[in-house]
């Protein structure tokens, strides 16, 4: 009996959360800023969002069956289903990717090593020294650190 019991218990691994719940819950959690007071309202919003998604999803399915999908306006789609194309999120993400800062830092170090090493040259005349000073001044202005 014990083996059978273990086998049955292992079958419990089939238990999975529903996809609709997973989607809504995930979106709501990831939209939450850590300092928000969202937690007080989450249950209501979760239920409302879930009901709205389910209702909209059902509307879409029914219309597909009836064959009128070609005239279905996009607002008939649940926003949660294409939330990954939210333009605000995309813009924020692009801004946070720091492409330009990383490359600017690399550029700084390349310039700094060259300019500063040249400044150590004892044979520079006064014109050359002024020029070096100007170059390093430009570097300070461009400093993106």
């Amino acid at each position, binding site marked *: 009996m014990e083996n059978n019991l273990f086998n049955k218990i292992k079958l419990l691994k089939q238990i999975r959360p529903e996809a609709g719940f997973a989607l809504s819950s995930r979106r709501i959690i990831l939209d939450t800023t850590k300092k928000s007071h969202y937690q007080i309202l989450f249950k209501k919003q979760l239920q409302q969002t879930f009901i709205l998604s389910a209702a909209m999803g059902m509307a879409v399915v029914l219309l597909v069956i009836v064959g009128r999908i070609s005239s279905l306006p996009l607002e008939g789609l649940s926003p949660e*289903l294409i939330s*990954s194309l939210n*333009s605000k999120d995309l813009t924020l993400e692009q801004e946070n990717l720091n492409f330009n800062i990383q490359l600017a830092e690399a550029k700084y170090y390349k310039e700094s090593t060259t300019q500063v*090493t040249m400044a150590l040259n004892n044979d520079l005349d006064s014109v050359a020294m002024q020029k070096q000073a100007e170059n*390093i001044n430009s570097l300070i202005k461009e400093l993106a*650190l």
Partner: protein
Amino acid sequence: MKKIVFILMIFVLGPFVVRGQTTINIKTALQGIVDNLEQLSRRLTGNEELKIRKAALKNVIDLATAESNDLKNKLIKLEGLEGDYLKLRDTLLKELGNHSNYYDSINSVLERETNLVKIKNLSTQLKDWRRIVYHPILQRIINFILVFEGRDVLQLAEIRFNNISSDLRKVSNLEIIKDSPLNNLLVKAEGSLNKARELQSASMLIILKSSNNDTQKLIEDELDKIRETYSYFVEMSDWLKKASKK
């Protein structure tokens, strides 16, 4: 109470203060070098020149120390390193430590030296050391950091791509989606992302070998591809916005 608040402020603001302090130190040292160069370009007495050259050397060492700290922090912050990359990171950190020892030795000579000729020799020594030892290692460190920062950027783009793919799959049976440019744009985005991935892989191989300048070019190209990927995402988002307003 004030003591507790003060201590708390140190812990909360500490990391920001350290980062800010590094930037200030770099800027201060660079400004110091600029001032020294401007002073040296004028007519000076022997003593004045000695004083300014010593100050200039000190500023160069302060700058190098601040830059070392900045690079050390960036190297330490890199996550998910394994195997040869972890070993290389540790090697690079050790090199920065060796540099620190070299600066200390220069500083100790600088403090006690009062002969202008010897100070000039020290300057030449430091210049040669930078050219022969410092520059190559610095380039290697910069490339290493760029490659792994590029990896993080790529990973974020991949997450976004997967989310968009998954969302589109859910609505793929809708006629309006089938007829839309969304799938086409997604395919293009995937193409750009694949290219970015190839460039990332290539750069990961190169950094293990040398301080080849091509690494920076690879990363620049990779970031261009990621930018391209996001431009397709934005195009998809714009189409969706327009279509939903019709």
